[in-house]
């Protein structure tokens, strides 16, 4: 045992160990940070404009009030509105496609080619978590409580780390007066199965 401590006292060993520890911790921190960078989307979708136009979240993510998954809009949903915008489709004075904003040109291309838009979900949980939107919406949780204020971002990003501590904290806060409900909301098998 003594000898091990002696070895540790050598500066070379000491520093290399320190560097190794720092590398591991730094790597982990970097990995966590990495998960928080919003992924690149096929279209730089401006949430702020759409929310600013008073479009309800559920219009484009209708699964949230009925299903586990909120869903990402399909191109026909986008196109249903965008093909009516008089700004570009004014019969008197249509704007040629190549003069549209570049992101809308991308959408038009997906529609033209009849290809699905490969959206990348941003607010995700690991595979061993079974998150359901419906009960949250039914319990009166507003979209922005978890997803942040979408009127201030363009491409979706996560306002916070979506980890278990965050889930449980909220579940506990909301069920202070209801022990039965609390039991259910902090029980393992409610989310992990």
């Amino acid at each position, binding site marked *: 045992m003594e000898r091990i401590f002696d070895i540790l006292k050598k500066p070379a060993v000491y520093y290399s160990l320190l560097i190794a520890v720092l590398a591991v911790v730094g790597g982990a921190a970097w990995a966590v940070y990495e998960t928080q960078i919003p992924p690149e989307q096929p279209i730089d979708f401006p949430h702020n404009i759409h929310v600013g136009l008073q479009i309800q979240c559920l219009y484009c993510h209708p699964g949230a009030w*009925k299903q586990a998954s909120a869903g990402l809009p399909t191109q026909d949903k986008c196109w249903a509105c965008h093909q009516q915008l008089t700004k570009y489709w004014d019969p008197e004075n249509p704007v040629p496609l190549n003069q549209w904003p570049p992101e809308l040109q991308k959408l038009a291309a997906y529609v033209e080619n009849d290809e699905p838009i490969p959206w990348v979900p941003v607010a995700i949980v690991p595979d061993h978590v079974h998150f359901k939107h419906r009960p949250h919406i039914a319990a009166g949780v507003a979209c922005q409580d978890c997803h942040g204020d979408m009127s201030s971002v363009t491409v979706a990003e996560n306002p916070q780390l979506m980890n278990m501590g965050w889930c449980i904290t909220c579940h506990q806060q909301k069920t202070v007066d209801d022990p039965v409900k609390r039991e259910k909301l902090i029980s393992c098998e409610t989310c992990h199965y």
Partner: protein
Amino acid sequence: MSENISRRDFIKLAGVTAATAAVLTGCGPASRYVVREPYTKMPEYTYNGQSTYYATTCRECAAGCGLVVRTMQGRALKVEGNKYNPTNLGKTCARGQAALQGLYNPDRIQNPVNQKGEEMDWDTAIGVVAETLGKYQPDEIAFLTGLAPDHLFDLFGEVAKTFGAPAPLRYGALGMFEARATLGEAARALFGQPNNLFFDLAGAEVTFSFGANFLETWVSPVAYTRGFAKMRQGTPGKRGYLVHFEPRLSQTAIKADEWFAIKPGSEGLLALALGKLTAEHQGKVIAAYEGVDVEAAAEAAGLEISTLERLARIFGNSRHALAIPGGAPLAQSNGLDSAKAILSLNALAGNLGQPGGVFLTPAAPVNDGYHRPATVRELALLVEKMASGQIKALFVHGVNPVFEIPAALGFSAALDKVETVISFASFPDETAVRADYIFPDHTGLESWGYQRLASGAKESTLSGAQPVVAPFYNTRATADVILAAAERIGKPLPYKDEVAFIQSKIESLVTTEGGFHAAPEINTFWAQFQQFGGWWTNDEKLGSPTSAVLDRPLAVRPAEYQGNGEYHLFTYVSPILGEAGANKPWLQEVPDPTTTVMWNTWVEINPKTAETLGLHDDDVVRIVSPFGAVEVSVYLYPAIRPDVIAMPFGQGHAAYGRYAEGRGVNPADLFGGAVNDAGDLAYAGLKVKIEKTGQKKQLSRLESRIGVYGYEEH
């Protein structure tokens, strides 16, 4: 209208991915109803992450159970039973559950290919079929189909008629093992019409099962299992009594109140003796049993006379007694006589057309004749014609004859003599890999179709099949291929495609009253046909047979056995694998119910016999018959007659994908070609030798794992 409905239904099938889209856009008429858009236009009522359920029909055997398949975003996830279908009322067997492993099997044939494995496009493929149909004389063409699906059998029948070719033969190993043709022939002789007979287990008080292994796989296992459960616990305070005669302890024997391991081939004699004793007990004189020698029968079966007398009292005292003839007893040289003898007990019990008795299976709503499987005698004729070069083109669908027809019939050698062999198999089975062309059909869950019931439901039933997912690969419905080919050589049939054909067949049901659903016209009816998974009557349509069988003397001659070994070979169809389940990995991993062996073949030997032979568990022995030999590991089975050894059928594939190939052995390789009076193979009358090899090959069994407790001896 129909297009609209189909669009609505099938838009959901289209997958999200571009890959799916590519597959879809590559399809021609086969996918006319399958919309080509992926989820770029998602239907309003579909959400990401929500399941959609489609009703269809199981194709793992020919029983025609209704399924409801859970799908999500164009993928099939889980097979569940269709609770409306009167055959299975929401239940399924293990084979049905594993149907998805056929759909998603990694060894599926993905494109039309020729013998060299070169891929071709469907246009060329249809050209090949057209050329083949046009090139040869009608009687040089043969169609060989499986027991399922029925719509294709009907279509092949019409095609054959149009071309003047012989009617298609249908065959499946299950049909052979159950000796269905013999039962049909016995029904014809006794009741005036061939029929697959319905045995009302649920209503029976006392059931004598002569080798009818209805809890393993016999005609319609799910329906008969339900009947069994009702017989046992269906009526409070009553519990039906089951007596089972079979050389080995099968699942059915395990569930029986009394099991008698009688000698193979003695079932008919035993039935006659029981008939005579029952009649005596009831104080009746029955002409049918006049000349019966009870003593000789008891000796043949290996039972005491006192036992027979006791059983006769049990049978005679019951108001609802039932006797069921199973497969193996009928697949003996005396099988037809045995069938009649066993069925005569029902006439004696007065249960013909009575609750708890024997009924005629309801006629199907569509093409209502009895379409029994081909007998081995009929197959032998086909093989002969093939071998002599008389058959120049063979079309194979839904059956794997090289594997399923016992080797002794020489199908394999005869196949080489056929100029053009076209297989429509979905998997590279033994027949397909030797065919000149493989034009893969969709698997059952991607297909349209309908299936008549083998037996099992009291209602006149047609189970309907629809694709639950878009075709996964570049496969095409065989019906569409045939129709397109016929059109190309100027002999078109009056159907645009497969769906049009099926619609034309069920059109008469639209206005039929008393059905589960009705509609004013075909398009609405068609939508309902898909929604409910078929059409059936609300009322029971069982036929009541009548018979004068008791008025004439009955006789069963002693069984003749092929081979001169010391041991009877008892071959049964693996209850888990069936005839075609070997390529599904989870079926391989489901333990055999009686031996708990997985992934292999075994031979069951009584421990006493093994002791005298000096054999232990897992010793490899060679089983030799005059017609072949197989090497297989020994399983000491504590509940089998000492003079009988047993092997399951289902493994021993030389092809058929990675999970089946080179695994286990095929006991049918030992069979000879002798047939019974009805033309069915007398495979059960076979005596074999056991030779030691000195090798050992461990069997994987579940029981070795749980052996740590409750495991004392065996």
